[in-house]
């Protein structure tokens, strides 16, 4: 008997009255909680599963709970989870009809999708053309502009004179930000509120850029007041049906890493929600999108929003949308890839209650240094309104090789207050020993007046971390 095809759990027999499984067998080209999440969806649909794993993940739960498993290489991702020939060969030897890529790894690799297609394997996601188009920032923006989706206004390239700067600012609308082309870290950067102060600030930015980077080239962009990261979940089938599942609020982030996500967003009115979601559907339609995808926007304090990017895969934070809509996004992905029509229409999608997700990472909660290691004690919270997406167990080892996410804690309530109360008590009854985690940071955020009132932007974490530093 080869290790490649050992079965560890009982075959899930298709229940007599359940729907016909969209596939017979699906390979999951991922690891950790998302691999397990996909396995759960497959099990619910009566689909056989194949796990692939690196030598570092031999004892992982995604390996344990898949029907078959194939070791595809050593620990480094490049030699295992990113190794296309190995992943394809694993699908071939196990006879998997389709591959679910999860998020990260090969999920937005257009070439991989082409290899799948060439090998007659169904890729669970959109086609390579869409992935390529949306993966290239410039091309994505051009496509969206052509489709009439609002982009962040800015200069078209470098701004070389004061007059140019004034003309650009007039067109963009104040406040604007002048940024060093070679820049970073705030140097060579100036925010201007009106035409009067622009000339001086423009020159300051340039000379600062010259000193800091040896290059005084600058460009201009609209400066957003307390921007929020708002994204819209999209699902489309192969027949042109595109439906949105409402928005997610992801403004609590650190260095562009999301920490906390919610749905719905407390920052937007029903009118704005309808506008932003309609815009997202329009954007998806513009590229002929199908399967699950997310359109990310930056939302200004004044209710203006601008396209940032599109993610052509399932998101880490998809559970909050599942909780408020009752729609199982991963199961729907599988059905769509098998050529089924969306099982719901826009009218069926109702956001009910409030959901919030905390990403618990194995990191120092104050310094964010990764903390791989062995989990020596573990208790995940349960009870009403709590969902835990994780592949961790007591005695599991978190290898230093991959990302540091330990678990996604999701709390649901009839309203935001109840959801927050549940998240607090979930964090209070979460026990993870052996590695440091960011849970204490999340617990502190849950009690912060700004967070409770909903008054935060993508810049809030910076302020909050400074507050914490000041406390010590």
């Amino acid at each position: 008997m080869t290790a490649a095809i050992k079965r560890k759990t009982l075959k899930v027999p298709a229940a007599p009255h359940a729907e016909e499984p969209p596939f017979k067998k699906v390979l999951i080209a991922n690891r950790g909680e998302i691999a397990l999440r996909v396995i759960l969806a497959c099990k619910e649909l009566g689909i056989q599963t194949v796990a692939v794993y690196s030598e570092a993940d031999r004892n992982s739960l995604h390996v344990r709970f898949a029907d078959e498993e194939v070791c595809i290489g050593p620990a480094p991702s490049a030699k295992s989870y990113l190794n296309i020939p190995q992943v394809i060969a694993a699908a071939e030897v196990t006879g998997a009809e389709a591959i679910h890529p999860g998020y990260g790894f090969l999920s937005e690799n257009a070439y991989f999708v082409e290899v799948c297609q060439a090998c007659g394997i169904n890729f669970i996601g959109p086609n390579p053309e869409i992935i390529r188009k949306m993966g290239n920032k410039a091309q994505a923006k051009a496509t969206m502009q052509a489709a009439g989706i609002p982009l962040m206004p800015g200069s078209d390239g470098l701004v070389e004179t004061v007059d140019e700067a004034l003309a650009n600012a007039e067109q963009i609308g104040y406040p604007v930000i002048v940024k060093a082309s070679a820049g970073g870290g705030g140097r060579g950067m100036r925010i201007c509120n009106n035409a009067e102060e622009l000339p001086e600030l423009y020159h300051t930015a340039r000379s600062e850029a010259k000193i800091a980077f040896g290059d005084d080239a600058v460009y201009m962009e609209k400066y957003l007041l307390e921007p929020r990261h708002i994204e819209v979940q999209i699902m489309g089938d192969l027949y042109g049906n595109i439906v949105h599942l409402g928005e997610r609020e992801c403004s609590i982030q650190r260095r562009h890493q999301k920490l906390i996500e919610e749905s719905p967003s407390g920052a937007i009115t029903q009118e704005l929600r309808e506008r932003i979601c309609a815009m997202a559907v329009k954007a998806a339609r513009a590229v002929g999108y199908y399967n699950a995808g997310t359109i990310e926007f930056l939302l200004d304090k004044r209710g203006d929003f601008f396209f940032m990017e599109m993610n052509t895969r399932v998101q880490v934070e998809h559970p909050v949308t599942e909780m408020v809509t009752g729609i199982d996004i991963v199961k729907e992905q599988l059905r769509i890839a098998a050529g089924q029509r969306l099982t719901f229409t826009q009218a069926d999608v109702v956001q009910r209650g409030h959901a919030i997700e905390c990403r618990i990472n194995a990191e120092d909660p104050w310094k964010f240094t990764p903390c791989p290691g062995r989990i020596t004690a573990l208790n995940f919270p349960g009870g009403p309104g709590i969902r835990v997406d994780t592949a961790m167990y007591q005695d599991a080892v978190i290898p230093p090789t991959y990302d540091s996410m330990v678990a996604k804690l999701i709390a649901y309530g009839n309203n935001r207050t109840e959801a927050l109360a549940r998240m607090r008590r979930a964090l209070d009854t979460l026990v993870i020993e052996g590695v440091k985690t960011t849970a204490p940071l999340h617990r502190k955020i849950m009690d912060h007046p700004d967070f409770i009132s909903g008054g935060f932007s993508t810049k809030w974490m910076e302020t909050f971390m400074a507050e914490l530093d000041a406390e010590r």
Partner: protein
Amino acid sequence: MSTRKKITPPKPKATHPTPAAAKPNKASASHPAASAKSSGSTSLSLDEIKSLIALVGKEPFQEFEFEAGDMKFRIRKDSIHAPAPQVTYSSSPTSQPFGQPVSHLMTQAPTVPAPVAYAIPEPSIPGIPMDDPDLHYITSPIVGTFYRAANPKASAFVSVGDKVRPGQTLCIVEAMKLLNEIECDITGEIVKVLVENGQPVEYGERLFQARVG
């Protein structure tokens, strides 16, 4: 129709099986290798004991026992998900049909990772001591389907009892329509063929058992 590519597993780093890479992760006690050869004052110094403890802590062992002279110690770690209850399975998967057109994508040589000779301790077989230093395993560097011969009509590359030398083709592992020749990395004799013809193999899977020398 099919491109051939030769893959030579590099020399194993150690002839001893590496328990850390054990497939059934419930690694049984490691081999008290030192005990056979150790002589003289058997007991270890405190520093030596400490270094052993630290080492054991890092390795994914469940248990470690040590005995030398009148010194003896045992370390036990406990694990949860180790004993995945195996459900016996009956149907062996059919390998994919060969008839499909090979796309242009296939002309790109697949990235084959350099495999570390990767030894999996098995339940000890009577007569063959597990830690026989002369025993060596040739493992698969890639995922694919194992073939003992170049084509269905040809005879097997090697059989039990055959003398083998480095560079000699031992079998083919087919993946993505490519027939990858797996070469020998030692001089010795084939003791056992561990995989059936036409069976799928995974990365690191043992294909042959050979006796070095």
